[in-house]
């Protein structure tokens, strides 16, 4: 390449500044940018702006950053936007250190079974005496917990795709393969070849209530979600109290304790009120934009004690039921009751849109849930 002219140097410098600001820009992109600008009338700075927008920006949410850098670089305007960014960065790194799980709701109707308490303690890492309680678990209890986990690993839910693979069952003819084989046999078809649809993992979404009354139960399910995530990449986990937080990333750790700790840090409102409707609405909103939750099995863990508008909950449940493949609600108040009638307004309102209700109040129930998850796919 010939030596750079002063103007090209300016453009390359701009690309590099953007790169420093966090946009992923390769040398080839800068090359495209320069050759793009060379096709335009460069006396008008707007041409340079739009050429850069088309060649260097790949995500709509990068546009504000691009705008700020462009102004700084070419117009020498320093706006407060950058300062704001710094501020939010600082805020997010200090806040959210509230890991302490509220140790509440001892007086739930019915007694809490020893199994459940132990499982809850297993999931927790923050307090020494909790670890000790886990150490006190009997062999039998530990064995059951492990069994539960391993079952999760082997049976993630699946769905059929449009793609096909070889099959032994006589269903759909695989003509492509038959032509090949016929050719090898001098035009004599020897056997029929069949194909079948391939199976693909079905996404699994956990939406866990972490407000005071539900925190301990959600911990159990969080442990669940962690195991599922280890076995099957298509698991997404959200927590909510007053608002929804995605904690999936925090679970990508080899060490389960570490993952639980990170997840705890990511959730900001462990001890706030409960706004199920608004939180679910946030979820369905998001899933309109992305594929989130589409065709998924959505597991909601909550007691249905909602401080928000019942109408908001019923609306968002309806949306959710249309997006998701199945909606499963885990409500510890159900207990072992077979003919469970929901009593909280939240549960009554959400009921028409729920496919299954589980209790998740003891190990046996969690095992049943794990079983069901594998089958409803």
């Amino acid at each position: 390449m010939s030596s750079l002219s002063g103007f090209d140097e300016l453009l390359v410098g701009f690309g590099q500044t953007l790169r420093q600001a966090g946009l992923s820009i390769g040398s080839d992109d800068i090359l495209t940018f320069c050759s793009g600008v060379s096709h335009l009338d460069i006396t008008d700075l707007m041409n340079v702006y739009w050429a850069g927008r088309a060649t260097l920006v790949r995500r709509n949410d990068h546009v504000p950053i691009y705008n700020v850098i462009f102004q700084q670089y070419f117009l020498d305007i320093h706006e407060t936007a950058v300062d704001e960014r710094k501020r939010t960065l600082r805020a997010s790194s200090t806040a959210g250190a509230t890991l302490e799980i509220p140790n509440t709701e001892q007086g739930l109707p019915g007694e809490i079974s020893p199994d459940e308490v132990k499982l809850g303690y297993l999931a927790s890492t923050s307090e020494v005496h909790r670890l000790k309680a886990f150490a006190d678990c009997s062999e039998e209890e530990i064995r059951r917990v492990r069994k539960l986990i391993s079952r999760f690993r082997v049976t993630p839910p699946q769905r059929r795709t449009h793609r096909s693979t070889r099959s032994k069952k006589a269903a759909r003819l695989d003509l492509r393969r038959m032509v090949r084989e016929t050719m090898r046999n001098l035009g004599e078809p020897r056997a029929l070849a069949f194909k079948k649809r391939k199976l693909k993992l079905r996404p699994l979404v956990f939406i866990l209530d972490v407000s005071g009354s539900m925190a301990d139960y959600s911990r159990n399910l969080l442990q669940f979600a962690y195991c599922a995530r280890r076995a099957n990449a298509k698991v997404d986990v959200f927590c909510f109290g007053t608002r929804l937080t995605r904690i999936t990333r925090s679970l990508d750790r080899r060490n389960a304790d570490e993952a639980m700790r990170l997840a705890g840090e990511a959730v900001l409102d462990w001890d706030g009120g409960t706004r199920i409707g608004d939180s679910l609405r946030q979820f369905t909103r998001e899933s309109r934009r992305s594929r989130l939750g589409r065709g998924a099995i959505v597991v909601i863990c909550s007691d249905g004690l909602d401080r928000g508008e019942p109408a908001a909950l019923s609306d968002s449940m309806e949306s959710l039921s249309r997006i998701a493949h199945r909606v499963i609600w885990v409500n510890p108040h159900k207990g072992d009751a077979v003919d469970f009638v929901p009593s909280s307004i939240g549960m009554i309102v959400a009921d028409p849109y729920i496919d299954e209700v589980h209790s998740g109040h003891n190990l046996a129930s969690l095992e049943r849930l794990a079983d069901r998850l594998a089958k409803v796919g």
Partner: protein
Amino acid sequence: MPFDQLTVPELTESLGEYKYIADRGLSTALLLALKLGKPLLLEGEVGVGKTELARTVSTMLGRELIRLQCYEGIDMHQALYEWDYARQMLFVRSLGSEEASDDQLFGPRFLLERPLLQAVRAGDQCVLLIDEVDRADDEFEAFLLELLGDYQVTIPEVGTIKAQSRPIVILTSNRTRELHDALKRRCLYTWIGFPESDREVEIVRSRLPEVGGALANQVVGAVNRLRAMDLEKLPGVAETIDWTESVSALGSNSLTAEIALDTLGAVVKDRDDLEYASRNIQDVIS
């Protein structure tokens, strides 16, 4: 290069002649795509004219539009090529005891061309539209990379086919999922948002020249108020045009509450949204 002399205002103007009102960002991106011979990736809300741009470009340049509609599970046999198995079978049978060679069977004679292969063969005689690429699986994106980067496709039995000249390639995505960076790298990127009111009126009037300016203004105003509401599905420009056309088809020159209620289905297409908008129809039209 045929686009050497073209400038941004000229391109905007000639798009306008074909009733496509583009803003400066879009025109610049399109111009660069034409000049640099790169694919153009359009992302944006539903119904803001992403697909329409490809159509307009093809008519404007007098090129054939080759369209590949993506969907979940699309694979190379629907997108690139397929062998004509029935004819191959017959051919093999007709040879009798002779042995059929690969060359005979897997040659142009039995090759069914699908859109991508057609586009590579047509080169600069066509505009290739890869529509709603976000609906296809991730695997399909990887498969597009060769085409978008080098304008060539590989068929195992035949070899690599390279375009003699570069086709214009336009990809659209509704952003139902994030596209892979590798794909984006090979394209120029533009986000098309909802147009500003003035521009939207301009679009409506150029599409529906028989409609009065007052009605167009009114409808655009109403649609903008709908977009500001808490709806699940926001109406796009296509809906604005449909609504204006519906109102005008009923012989009305202005948007009254009554007419708006009757024709609301042209612009709001979700049952919940429809109920909500009908309840608040006064806020919408005033």
